[in-house]
């Protein structure tokens, strides 16, 4: 198994140069310690980010893109190490709804991540060894505060929009709750205002798979990560990103490179082979401890609970500030089903915030937000342009 490829900051283990392509990684050290929901502060926080387009004279055209659980800051340009295209080039790029021709696009790796922003793989300031499990348990609100501090440093007082899907959508909602005066519009796609019991349950399976791997060693795995555990975690999670119909259409019961069952535990079926590949390729790009911390942050997410149990109260500030919302769900997404989006819309109505909501059709389950979807593009494009009139 390969070592997770970590970029920049003072992360350990040291990244291995896999592709000889210099990373134009931008890393900014936050000037102040970051206060955390769990108590205390985190000193010396680095935030790795990418930008596209130019900030206009009045610094009013900034759009913050928020990535999902295993995403990174390379939203619209090839990943510097893997060379793979940006993860949301369908939504961000020339002629796309978020367009560098008129927007200053920012995307930052989340707090706790493993793509350059301070996370458990980075060096602890005290001893230079990786934080590992000494990293504090963080929340999505902590991630949003780190992004807010990044924007402070970049001189951006107010965003034209925050846009994200899945965990990115949760952050978009959190942004509107934490900084209603700093956001003109929020786009939350395939997401929810809280993690359900089922969401938590799937994440717990993933975490237990990692921690059950003997190589995990209480988080102190150094250069020998718990690849098998992380791969299983990814396999289980990946199933939740798809749909039964999508899996059936893509794989059915078709066999992998063989004409008959082999009566063994090899990957007889294509779907097994596919999941194994997903698991193996994931461990090459993601840190196991980061996976523990970010899934934990998602499980702790409950925007209503943060506001006395009433989700509408989370959006009072946004309603008063006139923040516009666009909520999109997909009919085959059983991870964050339409009912979760409707709960958000109901709360937005109660808070008096202008809201748009549509459930789009797609056979691809939760992953639909990352895939080609002309209707999604049209909806987000029209929504953003309406705020630019």
């Amino acid at each position: 198994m390969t070592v997770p490829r970590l970029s920049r900051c003072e992360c350990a283990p040291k990244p291995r140069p896999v592709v000889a392509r210099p990373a134009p990684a931008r890393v900014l050290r936050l000037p102040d310690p970051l206060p955390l929901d769990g108590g205390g502060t985190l000193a010396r926080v680095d935030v790795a980010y990418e930008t596209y387009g130019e900030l206009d004279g009045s610094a009013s055209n900034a759009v913050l893109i928020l990535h999902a659980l295993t995403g990174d800051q390379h939203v619209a340009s090839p990943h510097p190490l893997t060379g793979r295209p940006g993860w949301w080039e369908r939504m961000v790029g020339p002629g796309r709804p978020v367009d560098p021709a008129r927007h200053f696009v920012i995307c930052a790796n989340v707090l706790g991540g493993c793509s350059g922003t301070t996370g458990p793989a980075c060096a602890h300031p005290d001893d230079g060894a990786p934080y590992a499990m000494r990293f504090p348990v963080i929340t999505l609100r902590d991630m949003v505060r780190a992004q807010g501090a990044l924007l402070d440093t970049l001189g951006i007082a107010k965003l034209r929009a925050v846009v994200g899907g899945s965990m990115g959508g949760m952050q978009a909602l959190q942004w509107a709750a934490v900084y209603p005066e700093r956001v003109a519009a929020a786009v939350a796609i395939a997401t929810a205002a809280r993690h359900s019991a089922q969401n938590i349950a799937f994440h717990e399976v993933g975490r237990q798979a990692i921690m059950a791997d003997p190589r995990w060693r209480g988080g102190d795995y150094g250069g020998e990560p718990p690849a098998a555990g992380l791969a299983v975690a990814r396999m289980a999670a990946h199933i939740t990103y798809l749909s039964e119909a999508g899996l059936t259409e893509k794989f059915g019961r078709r066999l992998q490179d063989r004409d008959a069952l082999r009566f063994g535990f090899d990957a007889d079926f294509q779907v097994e082979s596919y999941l194994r590949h997903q698991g193996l390729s994931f461990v090459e790009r993601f840190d196991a401890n980061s996976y523990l911390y970010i899934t934990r942050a998602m499980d702790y997410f409950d925007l209503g609970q943060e506001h006395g149990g009433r989700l509408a109260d989370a959006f009072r500030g946004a309603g008063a500030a006139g923040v516009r919302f666009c909520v999109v769900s997909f009919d085959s997404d059983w991870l964050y089903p339409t009912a979760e989006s409707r709960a958000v819309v109901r709360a937005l109505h109660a808070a008096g915030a202008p809201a748009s909501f549509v459930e789009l059709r797609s056979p691809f389950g939760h992953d639909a937000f990352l895939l080609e979807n002309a209707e999604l593009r049209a909806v987000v494009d029209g929504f953003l342009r309406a705020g630019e009139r």
Partner: protein
Amino acid sequence: MSLRPDLRVIADHVPRGARVLDVGCGDGGLLATLRSLRDADARGIEIDGANVSAAVARGLSVVQGDADRDLADYPNDAVDYAILSQTLQTVRHPDRVLAELLRIAPRAFVSFPNFAYWQVRWALLRSGRMPVTAALPVSWWETANIHQLTVADFRALVAERGWRAERAWFLTSDRRCGARGANWRAEHAVFLLGR
């Protein structure tokens, strides 16, 4: 932009800058007009996903939802005017939907095809079959109109529930006609209700 005549009546009578909620807003044609001509804070709810996408793509605040079920999500007095155009006859509980409109807004525009229009009566009398007319172009087995009503029916329900019909407009062949004999002569009716 050319609007359906009943929508034109509504658009002409929404005050400048008003907050409106169009229930069953389709692809947002009326809302777009109200936004551009009346500078209205225009919001909508629509059951059909493709229509919602089209409306949101026009930059309108429209949510996908069902008038029978999802109006409860709106707080009291959320807007100044609720609009229900050509939708009353399609909902499962017309009385409850009207009550919801007048909870969400102090005033509501309601337009509907008049089933007592003389051509409808004549078609029914002559053929003994559910009428298919210009205003009601779809056969009984595929029409969305599950609660056909007449001007007189509507007035009776409004009176029974203690609502006020503040104004009414009547249309025949896309032209305005008078209130006299409207239950015979009007193909479409538009009412402005108050609490």
